[in-house]
């Protein structure tokens, strides 16, 4: 059963996933993936986390222009709406 999509629930899950993936430095909405040393393969894994947790599918075109963690959170919330 997928978790309900709210800004808070997505933020919480993505922050935790990024930390678990070994993101460098503090994970905040404003942090860029580059600052966190999150690469394209990490983003693929993050998309899988989102699909497993929230039932929202993120394709390559969805994630390729993401710069910050906040943008990723907002994208998931928007796609679930």
């Amino acid at each position, binding site marked *: 059963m997928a978790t309900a999509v709210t800004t808070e629930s997505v933020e919480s899950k993505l922050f935790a996933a990024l930390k678990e993936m070994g993101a460098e430095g503090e994970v905040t909405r404003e942090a860029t993936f580059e600052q966190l040393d999150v690469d394209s*393969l990490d983003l*693929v*894994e993050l*998309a*899988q*986390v989102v*699909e*497993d947790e929230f039932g929202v599918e993120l394709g390559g075109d969805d994630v390729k222009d993401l710069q910050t963690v906040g943008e990723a959170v907002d994208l998931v919330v928007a796609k679930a709406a």
Partner: protein
Amino acid sequence: MAERGNGGGAKPETAERPRGCALVTGASRGIGAASARALAREGWPTVVNYRSDASGADRVAAEIADAGGRALALQADVSDPDRVKGLFASAEAELGPVLCLVNNAGMRADGLSPQITDEQWRAVLDANLDGAFHTTRAALGGMLRARFGRIVNIASVVGPRANPGQANYAASKAGLIGMTRTVAAEVARRGVTVNAVAPGLVETKLTEDVAGNGLLERIPARRAGTPEEVAACVRFLASTDAAYVTGTTLTVDGGMSA
């Protein structure tokens, strides 16, 4: 000896592997069936995928169960991406995440190039190459999350080398080897390996009409291989012992390519 850093890649694996299942496409007979049986003997709960031979797949699943293993026969035409999604959903609901994938489903539709129809070209590429891509794409997300995965693609000695009358088959198998190498490089640092096995002449339904024609004289071993001999290579590449083997093609052809 200097201590070796891991360069940010996944830690070397121990003999442990995460809980999950193996999925073998086209496993109702031949190399696929032998691979499913071999993986089940290694303790993998195993999905025996088939497209049309339900009785064959049921027989393979029953053999595995009789030997003390766990198996599930699931129908899906892997050339259809939507059916692949359904296949993975069913497999994961019953046996857990697919952490070992053997892309074996394949077909031939031979003819000299000027006589291969669009339908024959498309059907072979759809089954042999597109199908493997669909399943690989479906499997990788879970494998990346698990930091463990094994993908073994059943290619062929045809592709890297010529075989007149099989332009479509050769293109599909050469493409499969190219995909193997690139996907391997993409995911290696997550503990996911991607390799190919390239059989030569193997005694299966697919090759029963080609064993004559002086072919055996071109094989140094002077015999055809067996599905079990190919499956033994699959079993090794799927094992934790093969954690550092990725992006390669293991030729199993009795020396034909030597």
